[in-house]
């Protein structure tokens, strides 16, 4: 292994990339534009029905009336949670995004309020901050129902309020969800298309044949290119993160684990690019094939929109897409600080990376038949 050759190839790759307007645009400008655009203009694009869990601990006339009013809006698929279930544990266990708890003594407090001006009862609304659209819709529906009820009970004060409890400790919004997705997506695009260029254009141009007759080994070449891919990935991650922090005031956690996921992601999609280039040898066709694979993956893997908003069968598909695990691993580690969840998803990313990269290296070759 000649480290000098690897380093030299890496430096020349950066030079060539720096001179490519297209390369610069897709690796740096495009993700920045998307982040700024989506961050600024995002407005709810949701399904017509949202899943809402309701736990009625009161089990009275009034609590049932509230339930029926919610149902009457026809906006929700309402699932009833048994009264004796621990709400926090249930949310965690079932990965619930939205839950309303009608507390015990709901009816009693309302009745008391007629004589006692200080009486007040709060519904508990557990929500997942990353599901911004869903949360927003539920919040406004509850708010309008309660406004109506409060108006009927007292003209001047709030008797029934809402206590919002995030299922995650912090308050998140769409950009928090979107930023890690954008990092994963940009690394994927760079790695797949870079890899395809090396395996189709360089083959057509005779560069691979030329290299085969020089002392550089295929391992040295691949390592040099992976070093370059990691450089690009690091640059992309840094840039997107800085925009998130400076423009959107985000708190982003960059840890060694995040770096490992990013490295694994570079290997994963470089391997995928090698495989595409192996089976589709024409450069243009390979680019189209890459687009046909990466674009749907981008949408289906929860890069821009939470999986919750997609039909069930699409959610099932998402679970076989490598990018989904990249998104989840990054999101949980960088934003939600849910390291256990990130670790599980990250391990899947590493397994995917090993499978794709090793098969890519084994199935592609420089030699001609």
């Amino acid at each position, binding site marked *: 292994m000649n480290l*000098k*050759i690897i380093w*030299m*190839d890496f430096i*020349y790759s950066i*030079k*060539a*990339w720096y*001179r*490519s307007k297209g390369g610069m645009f897709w690796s740096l400008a495009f993700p920045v534009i998307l982040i700024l655009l989506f961050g600024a203009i995002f407005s709810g694009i949701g399904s017509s029905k949202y899943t809402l869990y309701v736990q009625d601990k009161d089990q009275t006339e009034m609590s049932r009336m509230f339930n029926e009013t919610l149902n009457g809006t026809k906006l929700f698929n309402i699932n009833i949670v048994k009264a004796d279930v621990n709400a926090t544990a249930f949310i965690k266990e079932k990965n619930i995004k939205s839950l309303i708890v009608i507390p015990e003594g709901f009816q009693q407090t309302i009745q008391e309020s007629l004589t006692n001006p200080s009486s007040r009862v709060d519904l508990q609304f557990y929500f997942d901050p990353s599901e911004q659209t869903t949360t927003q819709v539920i919040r406004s529906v509850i708010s309008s129902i309660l406004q109506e009820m409060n108006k009927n009970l007292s003209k001047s004060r709030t008797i029934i309020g809402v206590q919002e409890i995030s299922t995650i400790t912090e308050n998140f919004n769409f950009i928090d969800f979107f930023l890690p997705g954008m990092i994963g997506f940009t690394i994927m695009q760079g790695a797949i298309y870079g890899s395809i260029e090396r395996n189709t254009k360089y083959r*057509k*141009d*005779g*560069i691979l*044949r*030329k*290299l*085969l*007759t*020089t*002392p*550089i080994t295929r391992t040295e070449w691949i390592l040099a290119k992976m070093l370059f891919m990691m450089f690009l990935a690091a640059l992309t991650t840094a840039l997107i993160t800085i925009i998130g922090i400076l423009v959107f005031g985000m708190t982003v956690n960059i840890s060694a684990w995040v770096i490992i996921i990013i490295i694994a992601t570079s290997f994963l999609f470089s391997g995928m690019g090698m495989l595409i280039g192996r089976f589709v040898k024409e450069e243009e066709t390979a680019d189209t094939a890459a687009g046909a694979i990466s674009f749907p993956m981008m949408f289906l893997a929860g890069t821009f929109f939470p999986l919750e908003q997609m039909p069930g069968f699409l959610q099932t598909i998402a679970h076989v897409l490598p990018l989904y695990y990249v998104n989840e691993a990054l999101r949980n580690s960088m934003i939600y600080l849910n390291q256990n969840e990130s670790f599980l998803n990250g391990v899947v990313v590493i397994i995917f990376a090993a499978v794709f990269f090793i098969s890519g290296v084994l199935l592609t070759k*420089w*030699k*001609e*038949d």
Partner: protein
Amino acid sequence: MIEQRFKCPNCGQIASFYGNPGEHLVVTCSACHLKGRLTIPLAEQDNGHAIEVSHLKKVYGDLIAVDDISFSVKNGEIFAFLGPNGAGKTTTVEMIESIRQPTAGSIQLLGKDIKKQFTDVKEKIGILPQEFHSFERLTVRETLVYFSNLYKKKADVDTIIQSLDLTSHKNMLYRNLSGGLKQRVGVAISLVNDPEIIFLDEPTTGLDPKARREVWSVIAGLRKKGKTVFLTTHYMEEAEFLADHIAVIFKGKIIAEGTLEDLIRNYGKSSIMHIKKCVNAPEVIEMLKQEGYDEVSSEGNGDIAIKIDYKERVLDILSHLKHDCIEYESLDIRRSNLEEVFLRLTGSKLTEDTA
């Protein structure tokens, strides 16, 4: 570059000189300033052959792309592998370059079996693959430095740039170069490790005549430096202009081999002398026939064609014309060429549609 120690015959001073195998140097003794000529010996090869190919075969399914061919290339010569597209030229050269795996046969480069020792040979060969395009966004100089850094042995990049007349383009991006310049850079890349053998696969295909001539002059310059050049081409004029030795390949087989003179002598027609607009052409024809020129014919309009078997007969005819005060407008002698050789050997022309 190899070192040659030399003892001055005048003063006995011993000095070292450096050059490529086969290169002729004019040297001056550092002590007595005596000038002399010195030839750098051909290094390492014991039989004078840079390339030896024996019973080489490549089969793809039912297609025999290269059919049991054998040849050898001497050190310091330009060897042209001439044939139409699809004849098996690139398949052969790529087997020699270890890019393709032969079905059968053996290949030795610089005395080493490439099956076992290709890694050792890599440092000593330079290759320009067919239809080669280098990294688009590196400059000419960066491209050469990049490839040069892959080798232990390095030639001076700036000297290569200068010798291939690329100085004014050295800071241009490869993608912005013309086709001819790109091919020149391709040749330059093949020289970055100061190789002993250079393989150029169709180096002028697709170039205009001017660019083609430029590349030819570069290749001719390599011979002067003592390099062995293996050239594949389907341009017969390229082989005629450049090659010391030509092998004609057709449908995977070598059908003729030798120097240009050998091939023309063995497979071409004799030279033909044309006398244009000759006064009294019928009488002149009759006179020449009486002098023993059997193949004399009228081409109409006073034009006469005479077959010339050997060069002395040209002077003979000229003296007859002068002696009999015969008037004519012009006279030329057309030598048989490789195109005719190829036509005679294969029954088809050496053009693209032969493939």
